[in-house]
C-alpha cells in the first residue's frame, strides 16, 4: 500500500514536470511582450526611425517622399506583416520581427544586427503608442500547426486554387505580379502599390517560408489591396456540399431553381452562415463556447489545408535567395557553338541552365532621377560561333507599356532596354572604363531596343548621359522582342567584328568585355535619365580551351621527375663522400 502511494506520487510528480515542460510551449509561441513605453524607446525611435516614419509615426518622415513602398503610418494600426488573423492587430512579437528582420524589397533594413534585443523591444513599445487600439487588444494568432508538407501533389492542388480564387487578378497568370488589376492598385493612403512578383521570394516583405506565405494568405496584408482569403472557401461545407451549392448557383443564374432546390440551397446557405457566424463572432471579440470552438476548428481544418496547398504552390515558384550577380564564377560566359546560333525560341537556349543575373537599381545620379525603379534585374544567356554572337536577355516588367503620354509629366513613356558596352575595351586595371552611365570622354556603344519596334535594335554611341546619338552607319543586327506573362525576352544577334571599328565594340574570345544595362518601365514613369541602371559587369566569350594543356603539363611532369632523380643522386653522392 505504502509502496503504491509512493509510485502514485512519483507518477504525479513526473506528470507535473511533463506538464510544466509542455505547458510553456504555447505560451512561448505567442512571443514576448513589449515592455512599457519608455523615454529610451522614444529617443531611439527618433534617432533611427523618425526620418522615415515621422516623429509622430504618421509615415511622413523627411525621407518618405521618395520611397516606394512608403514607410508605414503607425497611427492607424494597420500592419502588413502579422501572424494574426484578418483585421487584427499584430502581436508585439510581429512588430519585433519586422524591426529585427526588416522588410526585404523595401527600404526598411534589418535592425537585428544593429540594435540590441532590448532596444528593439523598446522600439516596439514606442511604436505601439502611436495607435491607441493596442491597449485592450488580444489578437488571435493564425494557427500554423497543421502544415501540409511540400509535395508535387500539394503544389498541383495549390496551383488550381491560385487560378480559381482570383490570385491571378493581381499576381498574374504565372505570378510575376502582372495581373490585369495590377496597374491600378493603391494602398489605403492612396499611394501606388504593386502586387508582389511571386518569383522573387527574396523580396517578400514578411519572409518567404511556406508559413509566411500561408499567414499572408489567411491574414491578408493590412492597408494594401491584398485581402484575407479566409472567406474564399465555403466554411463548414464538405467538398460535396460546396460542389452542390455551386451547381445550384449556376442553375439559379440560368433557368432558375425549383422549389425543392431552393429549399436545398437555403439549407446549405444556412449551414454556411452558421459557421461564418461563429467566425465573425471571433472577429468581433465574442467569447466562444467550447462547442462553438470545436465546430469552428473542425470547419477551418479543410480550409487551412487548402491554403497550405496554395502556400506550397507559391513557394514552388522561385528561388528563395536573390541569384548571385554576374561576377566571379557567375560571370556571363558566352558559349561557343559550332554552326548557326539559336534563334529566339530555340530549345538550345535551355542548354544554358542558369542565366546570368544583372541587378539593376534606380538611377539617382543625374536629374531627373528614379528612386523607385520597378525593373530590378536583367538576365542574360549568350552563344557565339566563329563569326557571330547571340544574346537572350530577359527582364520582368509587370506591364507592357507601348508609347503613351505619362499621366503626370505628359512625356511619352514606353518600355525599353539599352545594353551598353565600352567602344574600346580597357587594357588593364589602370586603363579606365567609360563612366558607367553612358560614358564620358571615353565613349560607350549601345544597343537600344524599344517596345514599339520589337524587332529592331538601334546602334548608338554616347559620351555622357544626355548625348546618346544614333549611329549613321548601322551594322546589321537581328533582334526579336516579346512580352509574355510579366516578362520581356529580347534576342539579339550581331557579327563579332563590324566594319565600323571606331564606334562599335568588337567581340573577341577570351577578353573580358564590360557590359551594363539601362531599363525603362513606361508604367513607372521611366523616361530618359529616369530609369533603372546597372553598374559595369563583365562577360567573356568563353574560349575553347587551348591545346597547350596537352603540351605543358606532361612537360612539367617530366621536369619534376628529372628534378627528383637529380635530388636523389645528389643526396647519394653526398652520402658517399
Amino acid at each position, binding site marked *: 500500500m505504502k509502496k503504491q502511494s509512493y509510485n502514485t506520487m512519483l507518477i504525479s510528480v513526473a506528470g507535473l514536470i511533463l506538464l510544466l515542460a509542455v505547458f510553456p510551449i504555447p505560451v512561448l509561441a505567442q512571443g514576448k511582450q513589449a515592455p512599457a513605453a519608455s523615454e529610451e524607446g522614444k529617443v531611439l525611435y527618433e534617432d533611427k526611425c523618425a526620418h522615415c516614419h515621422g516623429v509622430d509615426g504618421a509615415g511622413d518622415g523627411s525621407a518618405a517622399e521618395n520611397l516606394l513602398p512608403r514607410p508605414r503610418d503607425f497611427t492607424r494600426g494597420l500592419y502588413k506583416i502579422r501572424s494574426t488573423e484578418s483585421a487584427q492587430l499584430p502581436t508585439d512579437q510581429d512588430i519585433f520581427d519586422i524591426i529585427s528582420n526588416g522588410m526585404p524589397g523595401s527600404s526598411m533594413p534589418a535592425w537585428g544586427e544593429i540594435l540590441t534585443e532590448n532596444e528593439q523591444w523598446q522600439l516596439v513599445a514606442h511604436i505601439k503608442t502611436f495607435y491607441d487600439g493596442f491597449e485592450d487588444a488580444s489578437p488571435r494568432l493564425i494557427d500554423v500547426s497543421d502544415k501540409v508538407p511540400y509535395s508535387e501533389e500539394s503544389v498541383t492542388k495549390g496551383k488550381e486554387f491560385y487560378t480559381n480564387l482570383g490570385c491571378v487578378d493581381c499576381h498574374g497568370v504565372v505570378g510575376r505580379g502582372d495581373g490585369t488589376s495590377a496597374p491600378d492598385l493603391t494602398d489605403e493612403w492612396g499611394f501606388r502599390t504593386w502586387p508582389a512578383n511571386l518569383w522573387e521570394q527574396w523580396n517578400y516583405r514578411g519572409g518567404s517560408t511556406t508559413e509566411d506565405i500561408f499567414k499572408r494568405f489567411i491574414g491578408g496584408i493590412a492597408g494594401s489591396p491584398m485581402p484575407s482569403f479566409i472567406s474564399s472557401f465555403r466554411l463548414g461545407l464538405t467538398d460535396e456540399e460546396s460542389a452542390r451549392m455551386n451547381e445550384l448557383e449556376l442553375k439559379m443564374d440560368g433557368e432558375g431553381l425549383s422549389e425543392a432546390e431552393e429549399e436545398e440551397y437555403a439549407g446549405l446557405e444556412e449551414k454556411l452562415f452558421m459557421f461564418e457566424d461563429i467566425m*465573425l463572432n471571433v472577429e468581433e471579440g465574442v467569447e466562444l463556447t467550447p462547442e462553438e470552438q470545436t465546430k469552428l476548428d473542425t470547419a477551418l481544418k479543410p480550409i487551412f489545408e487548402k491554403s497550405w496547398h496554395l502556400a506550397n504552390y507559391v513557394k514552388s515558384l522561385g528561388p528563395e535567395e536573390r541569384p548571385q550577380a554576374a561576377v566571379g564564377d557567375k560571370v556571363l560566359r558566352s558559349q561557343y557553338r559550332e554552326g548557326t546560333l539559336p534563334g529566339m525560341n530555340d530549345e538550345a537556349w535551355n542548354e544554358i541552365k542558369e542565366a546570368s543575373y544583372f541587378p539593376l537599381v534606380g538611377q539617382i545620379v543625374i536629374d531627373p532621377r528614379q528612386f523607385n525603379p520597378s525593373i530590378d534585374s536583367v538576365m542574360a544567356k549568350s552563344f557565339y560561333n566563329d563569326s557571330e554572337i547571340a544574346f537572350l536577355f530577359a527582364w520582368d516588367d509587370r506591364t507592357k507599356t507601348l508609347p503613351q503620354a505619362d499621366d503626370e509629366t505628359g512625356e511619352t513613356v514606353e518600355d525599353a532596354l539599352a545594353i551598353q558596352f565600352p567602344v574600346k575595351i580597357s587594357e588593364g586595371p589602370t586603363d579606365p572604363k567609360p563612366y558607367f552611365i553612358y560614358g564620358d570622354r571615353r565613349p560607350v556603344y549601345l544597343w537600344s531596343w524599344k517596345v514599339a519596334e520589337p524587332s529592331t535594335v538601334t546602334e548608338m554611341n554616347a559620351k555622357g548621359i544626355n548625348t546618346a546619338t544614333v549611329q549613321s552607319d548601322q551594322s546589321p543586327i537581328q533582334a526579336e522582342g516579346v512580352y509574355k506573362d510579366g516578362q520581356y525576352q529580347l534576342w539579339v544577334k550581331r557579327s563579332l567584328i563590324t566594319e565600323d571599328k571606331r564606334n562599335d565594340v568588337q567581340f573577341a574570345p577570351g577578353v573580358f568585355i564590360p557590359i551594363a544595362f539601362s531599363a525603362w518601365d513606361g508604367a513607372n514613369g521611366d523616361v530618359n535619365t529616369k530609369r533603372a541602371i546597372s553598374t559595369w559587369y563583365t562577360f567573356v566569350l568563353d574560349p575553347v580551351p587551348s591545346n597547350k594543356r596537352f603540351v605543358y603539363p606532361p612537360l612539367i611532369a617530366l621536369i619534376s621527375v628529372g628534378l627528383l632523380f637529380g635530388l636523389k643522386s645528389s643526396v647519394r653522392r653526398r652520402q658517399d663522400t
Partner: protein
Amino acid sequence: MKTKVVTILTLLIACVYVTTAAAAGGNEEVESLVFPASYKAMSVSNGGTISGMVKFDGTAPEMKKLEITKDVQVCGKTDKFDESIVLGEGNGLKNTIVYLTDISSGADFPSDAKYEIDQKGCHFNPHVRLLPVGKRLTMINPDRINHNVHIFSSMNPAFNKSQPGTRRKMNVKAVKKAEGPVAVKCDVHGWMKAWIAYIPHPYFAVTDENGKYTLENVPPGTYKLAYWQEACGTNKAEPVSVTVEAGGTVTQDFTLALK
C-alpha cells in the same frame, strides 16, 4: 453668356478634378460625419418627421464614364459612371446623407432590417450604405468572379477580405465605433467604389434618386440637421436647426454646390 460659359467650364474642371481625386483613392481627406457623444435607445411614440429635398445648385455636370479595364464580359454589360454626383428630377441630388448631429436619445434601429451591398456587374449598390454600429453587412456577389471587399476604415479594425465568385453572399463583421463615411473598394476592379457610414442612431437618411429624404419618428425637440455629400461636402460646421413637434412634419431642403 460669356460668364456662364466660364462658370460651367470652371465647374466642369472642378468636378473632374474632384472626381478624379476621389477616384485616386483614400488620400483625399474625407470629411467625417458628426456623431453624438452618447445615444440612448428608447421607445418613441409621438415622434415627428423631418423630410425634404437636397438639390444640386447649378448645371448638372456630365457624369464621367468609367473605363472597364477587366472582366469585361461581366462588368462591361452596363456602362459604369462616376457616382459622386447623380441628379434626379428637379436637380435632386442622390446619395446625400442627411442626419441629426446632436440627438442623445431616440428610437432604436428596426430589428428586422437587412444591410446589404450588392456587387452585381462590378458595381456597388447602394453607393452610400448606412450601417448601424454592431450590425453585420452582407456583401452580395452574383457575378461569379472574384471581388474583394476592402473597407478603408481607420477607427475600426481594417477590413479586406476576398469574395471569390463562389461566395455569393458574405457577411462582414460588425464594428464597435461609429465612423464614416469610409470608402469601400474592390481592388480587383479599381473603379468600384462606395461609402459606408457606421451610424450609432437611426436618424440618418440617404437621399433617393430624386434627392428626397425622410427622418421619421424623431422625438419632439430642437435638433441640428446636417448633410454630407461626396462631392459637395458637408455643413457640419454650420448645421441647420430644426424643431420637431410631436407628430408634426418639418420640411428642410438643402441646395448644394460643388466644393
